[in-house]
């Protein structure tokens, strides 16, 4: 289940000079997504398994509809009538630069700081899905989520995770109906 996002921001801008309307389906975009999420991960306790460490991956699913619709309108990009038959999604190119970090943690259930409690983000990865656009063309890297793997040790409880994604790709339209 995706993490609850407390606050999020986005910015989208053409990654190249704006292409003529006749070529706008080839337009590349730079999309920046930032935000803070609520998370819950606690280590295995003072005498817990795995030397106190617990590891779990969490999906983060930012809103991409808002920036894509903004870009289409702001830059006057020709597009099909938006709706279930043409839902705008972001099809990634080979370049993406995700980042995530722990933004909140505490020692849970005690009123002292356990010196051996600890936390660490292990990795983050952009998740994509394969699909076809509303005209039947392949869209092989549709942005789906950011997966963040976290570690908490002993009494440590991670309760906030934040992210900063810089993505390059194209706007394509899926038929969801």
């Amino acid at each position, binding site marked *: 289940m995706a993490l609850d996002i*407390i*606050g999020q*921001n*986005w*910015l*989208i*801008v*053409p990654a*190249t*000079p*704006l292409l003529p309307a006749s070529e706008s389906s080839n337009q590349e975009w*730079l999309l*920046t*997504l*930032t935000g*803070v999420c609520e998370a819950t991960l606690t280590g295995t306790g003072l005498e817990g398994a795995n030397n106190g460490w617990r590891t779990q991956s969490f999906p983060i699913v930012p809103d991409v509809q808002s920036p894509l619709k*903004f870009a289409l309108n*702001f*830059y*006057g990009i020709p597009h099909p009538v938006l709706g279930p038959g043409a839902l705008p999604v972001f099809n990634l190119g080979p370049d993406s630069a995700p*980042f995530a*970090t722990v*933004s*909140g*943690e*505490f*020692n849970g259930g005690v*009123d*002292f*700081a356990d010196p051996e409690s600890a936390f660490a983000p292990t990795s983050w990865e952009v998740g994509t899905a394969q699909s076809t656009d509303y005209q039947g063309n392949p869209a092989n890297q549709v942005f789906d989520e950011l997966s963040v793997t976290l570690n908490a040790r002993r009494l440590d409880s991670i*309760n*906030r995770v*934040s992210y*900063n994604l*810089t993505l390059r790709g194209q706007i394509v339209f899926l038929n969801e109906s």
Partner: protein
Amino acid sequence: MAIPVNLTGQNWLITPAANPPGTATVTAAGAGVVNRGNPDQLWLLVLTGVGTLEFAGNTGTNDWLSETVRIVPDVLAPLASVSSSPVLGLAGTQLAFNLVLWAPFAAISGVAGNDGFALSDWRPTPFIPTLLDSSGKSVPQVFQGIDVDLGVLRTSVITGVSYNITLLGRIVQLGKPVFAPPASR
């Protein structure tokens, strides 16, 4: 009132961004050439850095203590590097960045005596809606910095905050702020 963060290191990057149709940047030099003097030119500005502060928890209770801190990066240097206007002009005017889109990001970069810390949210520092540019045009979304909500538990002391702010906007030459509406006749 937000606590100011003492910035100890900062970096920036600025590059022209494509304009929407109808705000052409075409100059005599040809299509695609950036017109630095065009007030409609959009720019992509990235600001990164780290700063210090001392936000200590309340050791006498088990409650979280919350506070808002303010990060105000230098924008004059990047704007001056690409602008055809002087940083400080006549009549007290100066360069500023009027935002179209913004994507701030901040993180806690230093904690001492860790019992617990939290960064809950960030947002642009409230805009000054009455600002005018040197021609008298309203520029209601001039970047003023970002505000970041922090929390500490018991013995924790947050000692560092870092940021990565991506902005899209236009360079403006600010006139004097208007603090009150004109007197009615």
